[in-house]
């Protein structure tokens, strides 16, 4: 399963080409939708979702199992563009071009997503969940009252729906 993406070299190449089309030559930086994730970002995101359920998915460019989850999330988002999804890369935002390529491959490039933007990553991880050991992929399911359930490892869509029946 990890390797679904490994077999799609052609798709990856296409994704790179597509991404190249996104490049804003003016400032030589990808015109992506990635925002920096700082120590206060998570509390701000929770405030934005006040009274509403939402899902958080954590991934990194160096995480093979994460690609499986991104694939599922991309398809879910495509089927329901209003799906309340927060995607956060735990890579330093200096790797944003790598992340943008991958997000594009999984049809998530048009969504606003976040990347860690503080080298003191322990604090960023703590701001999301003091009980998270850092393993990836990692997901959080918040209900409307913001009661939270967490999951480590690849999620099946069935499990996802069970944890987030909204």
């Amino acid at each position, binding site marked *: 399963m*990890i390797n679904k993406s490994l077999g799609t070299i052609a798709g990856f190449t296409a994704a790179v080409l597509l991404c190249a089309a996104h490049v804003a030559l003016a400032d030589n930086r990808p015109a992506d939708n990635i925002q920096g994730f700082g120590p206060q970002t998570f509390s701000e995101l929770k405030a934005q979702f006040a009274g509403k359920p939402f899902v958080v998915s954590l991934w990194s460019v160096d995480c093979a*199992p994460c690609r499986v989850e991104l694939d599922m999330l991309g398809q879910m988002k495509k089927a329901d563009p209003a799906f309340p999804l927060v995607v956060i890369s735990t890579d330093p935002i200096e790797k944003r071009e790598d992340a943008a390529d991958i997000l594009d491959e999984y049809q998530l490039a048009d969504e606003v997503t976040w990347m860690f933007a503080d080298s*003191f990553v*322990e604090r960023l991880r703590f701001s999301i969940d003091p009980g998270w050991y850092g393993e990836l992929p*990692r997901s959080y399911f918040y209900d409307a009252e913001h009661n939270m359930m967490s999951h480590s490892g690849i999620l099946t869509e069935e499990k996802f729906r069970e944890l987030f029946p909204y």
Partner: protein
Amino acid sequence: MFHLISDCLRPLHGRPLPDGLNTIRQFLLAAPLALASVLSSLFIPAAQAQNCETLRSAHGEDVISVHCGGAPSASFDHKNHLWVAFVSNKHVYVSRSEDKGTTFSTPVQVNAVPEDAEFNGENRPKIIVADNGTVLLSWTTKTSNRFTGEIRFSRSTDGGRSFEQPRTVNDDGLAIGHRFDSLFLTKSGKLYVTWIDKRDLEASLARSENYPGAAIYYTVSDDLGASFMPNVRVSHNSCECCRIAVAPHGDDNIAILWRQIFGEQIRDHAIAVLSPEGTVSDLSRATIDNWQIDACPHHGPTMVPASSDGQYHMSWFSAGTIHSGIHYARYDLATASPADIIKIDGTPGAGHPSLATFNDTLYLVWKGFDGMSTPLQLMTSNDEGRSWSAPQTLISTDQASDHPLLITSAEGVFLSWSSEQHGYVFKELNND
């Protein structure tokens, strides 16, 4: 006795980090961050309090220094001179200190052609200096964003003034995953390189067969890296993303400890003994933590020999249902079982332990996180791990930091640790 299977996971984050090592000249790994409630400033003399930011202010953004380098690791030579390897701007560098880390020589570039040498907690350049002065290095070079890499090796036969063109140690010629190298030199001069390899995974996929995780491979050189024997597989179905711990076993052999997939999705640890002839023995399960996770912990173990032959001190991280947090145990190859299992630190931020022994004392250092800062904690045992001192905070930081590593020489045991706040810290632990 050993049931493999399932799929490994993925890393935490891609921060700077170190690797572990010990005793005679062995190598491994480790890594992360920190902040400053300097409960005890025991170990940070003012002279060492130069960090990269200070150096860049004085010498420019491109300054090359152990204090700015990514994921440094260190080793002593037989003259008790300290050698440190680190990554800077796609080059591996080596710097030497004749005063135990107070001052360093001008760094020497190892690879003349830039390559994407990995530097993070679980993946860092390793350095060992043989008794004849040959400087030996291995590292992993990332070759794509698809989890591929090559195991690289270089050496210096002129005392570190120049280095041979790096060579790739994995011999399959495939553009696939070969990562998380460890380097170890036995007293008898056998040079081992171990790593995580995906050639069996790729072969299985080509046959449309499932293959959980990756595999552990190794090679040996009996001429200090002039040549290596063909690659040998140690085990199928390893986890894909955790450093491998290495310790000596007799004169020529080594024991290794790694995260292995058991059953469907249990990522605990396995141990095995490797010989220079390419034989693998004593393969058995080393920890029973029951960590079921289809993800990557990026959290490898540490191991050093105990005083009795065939016994090893080991420390590891798990979030399993049986053991959660950092644990210690003493493993006996004869009985294939661990003893004196104790929980070292079960708080969520605790991780990345490093073990060392010196003068019958066992040292264990690890990283914590209290919500604001990262303390480095130390515990010691004088009875082979049966009982331990209370934890002592060596230093802390509220900025990014690497995994702590313990390094031993004939004279003592030392902390090797890099952080944004403190720069590269190298400090003796056994004289306070």
